[in-house]
């Protein structure tokens, strides 16, 4: 399975990690058993449990920079499975840091499974200069605004479209309206809409709110009445024939774009990239929008049990590393991720002699992030009203 923003699939990464692990073992053997083990014990080891998307392809640069080793145990992308592991299986006894998509901190924080973030910790040197768009986002704060973690990666999702079919210039930076997705006559019957309430309901609410048709207290967590408003609107649009199809998987996003079955689709950014590989550069584009984005992000949180362990300093070093230019640049280059402090990533690449193309790509990502991240809204995997939202989404599907 591919993850949202990566061009590698997990099997490839696992294989790569395994190969790296094997070569590391071979290295150890070459150095000689006993001295090798002794050396490994000198370097503090930080154990991370979370989605593999946060892992570097190779942790060696971090070990070199910090003198701390990291080991990431991949968790499921399913929030329920992840929460069960943390709550039921006491993962905090063995893991130092948890990494997951926005939402778990709302529940695991107040319930005492995550330790609060000490923003003034001496190792967290980059905290101060990290933009509020990232560090104060709902990805790392709970609903009361309490700080539980640091942002690791993220993106602002919108929709992919064919500029030519909509009569737009292929290099346009113009901000488009989500009406192309929901109401435009030009796109009627030519739209693919993601079939998941978590991914698709929020952007519809965002659009309704922006055009003044309704107001919502929290777009990421719609109350039963609000969810009904959104579902009613979507049912009306569905009956009007706006949607050609509701898609389910990442592979479908690519297929729908590549074979021209639709003109507009609310999809992940890599789908547009993949489609352009087949159709040619800028055949499809990922929209800048007027109203806002489905902003998502992964946060890194400290296991509550780790607060009493003696490696807290090393943990904060790793958290700080997630905010650093090196991590930013490596993640962007190797896996296409954006994240906080993109400018540091650009600096790092320039200072370390990356080629012009790589630096330009980083700069483009920085510009894109700056343009998008000031707009609403931050999604969550754990809305309080998940039940009501899911039920209303089913009503839309069944209508």
């Amino acid at each position, binding site marked *: 399975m591919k993850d949202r923003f990566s061009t590698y699939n997990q099997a490839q990464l696992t294989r790569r990690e395994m190969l790296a692990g094997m070569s590391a073992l071979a290295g150890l053997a070459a150095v000689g058993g006993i001295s090798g083990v002794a050396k490994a014990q000198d370097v503090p080891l930080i154990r991370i449990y979370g989605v593999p998307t946060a892992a570097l392809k190779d942790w060696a640069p971090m070990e070199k920079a910090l003198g701390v080793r990291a080991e990431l145990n991949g968790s499921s992308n399913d*929030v*329920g499975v992840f*929460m*069960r592991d943390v*709550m039921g299986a006491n993962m905090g006894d063995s893991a130092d840091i948890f990494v997951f998509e926005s939402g778990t901190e709302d*529940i695991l924080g107040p319930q005492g499974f995550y330790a609060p973030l000490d923003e003034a910790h001496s190792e967290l040197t980059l905290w101060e200069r990290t933009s509020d768009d990232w560090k104060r986002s709902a990805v790392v704060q709970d609903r009361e605004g309490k700080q539980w973690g640091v942002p690791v990666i993220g993106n602002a999702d919108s929709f992919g479209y064919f500029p030519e079919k909509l009569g737009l210039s292929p290099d346009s930076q113009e901000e488009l309206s989500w009406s192309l997705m929901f109401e435009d006559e030009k796109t009627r*019957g030519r739209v693919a*809409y993601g*079939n*998941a*309430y*978590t991914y698709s309901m929020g952007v519809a609410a965002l659009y309704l709110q922006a055009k003044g048709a309704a107001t919502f207290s929290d777009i990421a967590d719609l109350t039963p009445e609000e969810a009904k408003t959104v579902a009613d609107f979507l049912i009306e649009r569905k009956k009007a024939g706006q*949607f*050609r*199809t*509701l*898609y*389910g998987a990442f592979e*479908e996003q690519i*297929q729908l774009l590549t*074979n*021209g*079955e639709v003109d507009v689709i609310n999809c992940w950014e890599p789908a547009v990239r993949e489609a352009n590989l087949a159709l040619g550069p800028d055949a499809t584009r990922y929209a800048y929008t007027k109203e806002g984005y489905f902003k998502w992000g992964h946060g890194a949180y400290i296991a509550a049990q780790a607060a009493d362990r003696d490696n807290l300093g090393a943990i904060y070093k790793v958290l700080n590393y997630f905010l650093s230019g090196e991590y930013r640049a490596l993640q962007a280059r190797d896996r296409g991720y954006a994240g906080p402090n993109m400018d540091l990533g650009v600096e790092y690449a320039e200072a370390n002699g990356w080629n012009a193309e790589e630096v330009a790509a980083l700069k483009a990502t920085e510009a894109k992030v700056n343009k998008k991240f000031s707009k609403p809204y931050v999604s969550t995997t*754990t809305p*309080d009203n*998940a*039940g009501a*939202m*899911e*039920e209303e*989404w*089913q*009503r839309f*599907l*069944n209508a």
Partner: protein
Amino acid sequence: MQQIAGALQPATGGREGFLRALGARLADMNLAVTAILLTWFTLVIVPIVVLFAFSFFSTVQFRTVYEPTLDTWIGLFSSGRWEVTLRTLRIALTVTVIELLIAFPFALWLAKGCRSGTGRAVCLAMLTIPFFLDMSSRTIIWRAILGQSGLINTMLLGAGVVDTPVEWLLYSEVAVHFGMIVSLFPPMVMPIYLAINLIDDTLLEASNDLGASPWQTLSRVIIPLSLPGVIAGVVFCLGPALAAWVEPGMLGGGFVNLISNSIESAYSALRYPVVAALSAFVIVLLLALLGGMFLIARRFGDPSSSLSAIRG
């Protein structure tokens, strides 16, 4: 079935008599059968009971609250979500009936009509090949064929039959029916073929000699004797059709919401009790259906003859 009925009869003679009879019955029974039944019970029945029990709990913030409540069931009906079960049932039954209408003549031809051994071997091989391929891969191909810029529409447009691409070929109930009929054909054909194949040719000749018309031979000899195969085929077809997930997802374009899709959606919201309730509801529907079918089949002959091997 008859064994159980037999074991239950002495119950009227008092509890002790019942237990003794049951004990005697069990002693008579083959140990292997008992072991299989026990394993079956542990692996299949117990989880279903647990599942059913789960539908009476609720989930609050990812933790299951073990306090009995009817909320899930009330919600299932008040929100109209149970309609997906009716839609699923309608589509599954339609597919099964169409499947039966195509598969029976084909199986009859394959078992009795096809005189070439090679031809039959090729047909049987063709029927088994789909089992070696992943369901999703088999289904996704149809999208390239049925889509607006797909093979069929390109041909229709090219031939001038239509001016604009035919939209309902894909992402519609028609497409879902089609996909299910294609994928569920082998499970329907195989048991019927085996049952008809077992019918002794001399029976057919005897029927003919006694002056029966071909239709009478079919309705009085072949159909009753092939009933166990037909029932097995219907079960093997109806079950997967009720649980269909790939076809509605890939060919229905999200517009054909069936029970499995609804369950998956509830799962994504971590509403395990809803998952449990929907699943339990389907199982109840399925049991009612099978019960009805069994009663109908009994009018034609002895459906339990398919169990005769066990009774041995």
